[in-house]
């Protein structure tokens, strides 16, 4: 089962207008830089972006925003940290002008929505967000004397992820805190596309230490070690 693609362009060729795409990465760590850059060069538009950051600490997604490819964002920390910087930020401006819709969740809920989509579980209750705007309009239910809010799974059409090492069958290994959302998003993706720093043949990874089993991954493409500047947040 050889899932290796020769280029990021080939690997993302079937991304369609209006697709829901999850992008892994937490600030500077674990972002699918090359896949996202390639997407910015395609004409696809009307995208829904599922990602922790949009623009701040994530210049590649910012490019999608600036290109007008983004319709909606589902996130947990989408805006610049500083209100002043935010006023000048193209994403925040697009939100203020109503050109991009935004849905925000606490990280724990955000990532569990992704995992549940991958795990075939349609919904779960969490105590996080009760009594806040996050729970507005949602069902509240008491278990063991504690209020909880009902949250639903978040499946995505494509998941763009970044791994340290991968084999041709899609087994992946991450490095340090660059792991972050990569596994949950791989699980949630109908089509999960992994850029990997190093691609090896099947058997080149220790089977006891695979972080994401290949069954969750449809395509793998080797991109080398990214050259990263420290992200501005």
């Amino acid at each position, binding site marked *: 089962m050889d899932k290796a693609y020769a280029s990021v362009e080939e690997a993302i060729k079937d991304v369609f207008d209006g697709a829901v795409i999850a992008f892994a990465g937490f600030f500077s760590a674990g972002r699918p830089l090359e896949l996202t850059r390639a997407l910015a060069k395609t004409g696809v538009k009307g995208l829904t972006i599922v990602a922790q950051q949009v623009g701040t600490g994530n210049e590649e997604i910012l490019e999608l925003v600036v290109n007008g490819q983004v319709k909606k964002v589902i996130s*947990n920390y989408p805006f610049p940290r500083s209100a002043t910087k935010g006023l000048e930020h193209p994403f925040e401006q697009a939100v203020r002008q109503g050109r991009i819709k935004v849905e925000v969740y606490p990280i724990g*809920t955000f990532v569990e929505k992704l995992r549940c989509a991958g795990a075939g579980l349609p919904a779960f209750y969490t105590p996080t967000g009760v009594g806040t705007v996050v729970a507005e309009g949602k069902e509240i239910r008491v278990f063991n004397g504690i209020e909880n809010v009902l949250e639903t799974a978040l499946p995505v059409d494509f998941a763009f992820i970044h791994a340290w090492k991968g084999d041709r069958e899609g087994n992946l290994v991450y490095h340090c*805190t660059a792991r972050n959302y990569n596994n949950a998003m791989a699980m949630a993706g109908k089509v999960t596309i992994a850029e990997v720093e190093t691609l090896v043949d099947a058997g080149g990874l220790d089977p006891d230490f695979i972080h994401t089993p290949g069954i969750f991954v449809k395509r793998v493409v080797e991109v080398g070690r990214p050259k990263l500047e420290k992200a501005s947040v």
Partner: protein
Amino acid sequence: MSGLKKVIIPEMPPLEREMIALRIANMLEEGSYVNLGIGIPTLVSNWIEGRDIILQAEIGMLKSGPLAEEGQEEQDRINASCQFICAMPGSSYFDIETSFAMIRGGRMNVAVLGALQVSAKGDLAGWNNPSRGLGKVGNIGGSMDLAVGARKVIVAMEHFTPGGEPKIMSECSYPLTAKACVDVIVTNYAVIDVTPDGLVLKEAIPGVTAEDIQKMTAAPLKVAADFKEMEL
């Protein structure tokens, strides 16, 4: 003159942010797992070297170490504030679904969080300053999970807003992070416990009286029987 206003503050200078962090570090017990939020809470890490306290970085790391020195940065190893950090013997990395399982699952002994406002019932407002004008969206990050999930929540903040308004009040006017979640408030003037009977003033910095703190606080304070001068 109409654009200016008068604010009453003590003659004694307030604690520096580093000293708020030190007071909190001294509250932490040996053998604790602790998560430090962005801002003043992060500074607590400067005061626990050599102690048996394990820090969690919610991005997916336990036993996160000190900031990496110039030239020693590993681009794949950052904390939730996007700072390059060090690993230590016994560190571990994991995915963020596991990181928040720990947090919601009650494995954090303490979360130290910043705040915009705290209410008399321990409600915390910290993620959305309405003055920014973004309505019901904003940067939530891990704050709501930490506020709900940690066994003890310590708020680290300045006593007043930059505009001189009290941040401790009967009811929060800003969007909440979580209801009734705060256990202790440590400001640059005082230590205040949140109890079922309301706010209890435990400590004030030298030269500042319980009465002064009450005047600086927009919620009623009880004064603890063992009220004392803050020691650092």
